[in-house]
């Protein structure tokens, strides 16, 4: 089948459309099984919109210091008060959302891609490769991810790129696990057998035939791990290993608020609520979807 063959191109395109359509309708079905997923999705999209529009809707510049208005409580001018430098908390939370979501999305996308490939190949190839690769993943999985993240960021330095590397590194093993489990089941199914009989290459079988079948589980895990990534990023920032000040990050804001907790508790309160909202929304979303696609729990609702 050559690339110039128009008929082959058409089948290829329609094949991918079909898989995408199947994935899409499967997702909508999963959402409907557990209505709380819609609530989680709504909340998450809302936060993403706020983050995307932050430069337009933030009432103040997040870095603008107004020494005369420092440590003010919530007011008409500053809905969520100001910090020790007189910066507007609301504007900083809106801008901080961009950092949290960006680090979370990029690191989890990277971990998802790398982890899925590792799990898919290990499960498909099987044998000794599978045992060794998965043993390494299990060992990495056992190591506390926050500690691993701490060490990696401390060694590399706290920049956005390095935070992404550190978080992605800790999230690869779980994706490898998630991708491997269904792969070893799906690879024994008839359609894979048929593909092999037709002489399809291993890569084509893995990418075109097995991957679409394991993708829903991997994607659902993606939402849950996105929640974890945002939590880890905030934790690192709280410890002092986040994106360097004066950039607004939620974890960093809570750290500063914690230092002023005796007289201005709202400084720690509002960014705390922001993290809680995003992580809860993602957990609601991922958890509902997982129930929907988990065959053991099917028919529960």
């Amino acid at each position: 089948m050559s690339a110039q063959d128009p008929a082959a191109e058409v089948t290829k395109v329609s094949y991918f459309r079909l898989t995408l359509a199947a994935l899409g309708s499967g997702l909508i079905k999963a959402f409907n099984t557990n209505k709380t997923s819609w609530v989680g999705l709504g909340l998450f999209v809302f936060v993403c919109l706020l983050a995307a529009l932050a430069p337009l809707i933030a009432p103040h510049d997040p870095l603008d210091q107004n020494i005369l208005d420092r440590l003010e409580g919530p007011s008409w001018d500053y809905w969520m008060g100001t910090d020790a430098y007189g910066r507007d908390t609301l504007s900083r939370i809106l801008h901080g959302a961009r950092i949290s979501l960006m680090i979370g999305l990029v690191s989890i996308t990277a971990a998802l891609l790398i982890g899925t490939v590792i799990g898919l190949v290990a499960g498909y190839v099987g044998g000794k490769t599978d045992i060794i690769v998965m043993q390494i993943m299990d060992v990495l999985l056992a190591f506390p991810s926050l500690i691993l993240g701490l060490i990696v960021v401390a060694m590399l330095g706290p920049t956005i790129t390095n935070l992404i590397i550190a978080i992605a590194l800790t999230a690869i093993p779980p994706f490898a696990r998630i991708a491997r489990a269904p792969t070893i089941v799906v690879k024994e199914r008839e359609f894979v057998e048929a593909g092999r009989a037709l002489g399809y290459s291993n890569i084509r079988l893995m990418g075109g035939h097995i991957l679409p079948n394991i993708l829903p589980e991997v994607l659902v895990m993606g939402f849950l791990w996105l929640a974890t990534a945002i939590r880890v990023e905030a934790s690192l920032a709280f410890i002092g290993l986040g994106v360097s000040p004066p950039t607004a990050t939620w974890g960093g804001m809570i750290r500063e608020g914690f230092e002023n907790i005796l007289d201005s508790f709202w400084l720690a309160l509002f960014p705390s609520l922001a993290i809680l909202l995003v992580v809860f929304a993602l957990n609601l979303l991922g958890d509902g979807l997982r129930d929907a696609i988990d065959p053991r729990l099917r028919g529960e609702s």
Partner: protein
Amino acid sequence: MSGFVLKRMGFAVITLIAVLTIVFFIVRILPGDPAMVILGDQASQQSIDLLRARLGLDRPMIVQYYEFMAGVAVGDWGVSMVSGRPVITEILKVLPATLELTIAALILGAAIGIPLGVWAAISRNTIPDYLIRLASLLGLSFPAFVSAVLLLFAFAIYLPWFPVMSSGRGTSLGARLNDLALPAINLGLIMAAYITRVSRSAMLEVLGQDYVRTAKAKGISFSAIIWRHCLRNTMIPVVTVVGLYLGILIGNSVLTEIVFNRPGLGRLIVGALNQRDYTMLQGMMVIYTLLVVVVNLLTDLTYGLIDPRIKYS
């Protein structure tokens, strides 16, 4: 039984070696020269070279690896670059405080989580079930430092019931418990959220088993079915998952110790990071790895205590 224990211990040692190897190489592969990290980028090449020699970083990687592993094996984990005391002494000094906190949190988490999970399962798809599920999902959405800050504000500052700083060094039992209370509640509530969810799904699975139906058919009372037939069978997945969540528990204990300013491994590692105490960091990695491996071993051995059908062979 003893054969099984030996086999499991052998496996634990292999895992330990594997984790240490991976951690060793991850740290070495990362760009960034420890000597430069310690001295800062203003340091002269000469002083960097000197420190590299002192840390043994100028030798071939394989030699460093051998010395690191040999040192770990005989308990020589090097000397702290900041305090000058042996790393292992510093770690052992604060380890009891961290163990005290995590064990208290586990007990609290199990005491709250298991009953709630069972309750949710037996009242499946009713209001209590929805509420418990929502609460547990909310509980595990809390970053440990956020809940710690909120608890500290509510119960140490706004309502001054507990100390703002827990020294962990109280002499009397009462003082110790008072110190431990808020940090343990913080960590315990998050653990409870995880344990509730596992207990619920494990219980749901058990409730669907044939022997439960048989027991119901025989007319055994509902509470007897739950207590005698279900609970024990629910415990296996719960114990497994608690072992798996150890990493989360350790990460959360670091954050909890920082917020409550409580001595322990968490404050030690953050101090080592801030002061670029490279040997201490290496020692911390060894102790965390040891903890993980030992807990996994204990988890495996617990199965037999819970379920006599599991024969160790």
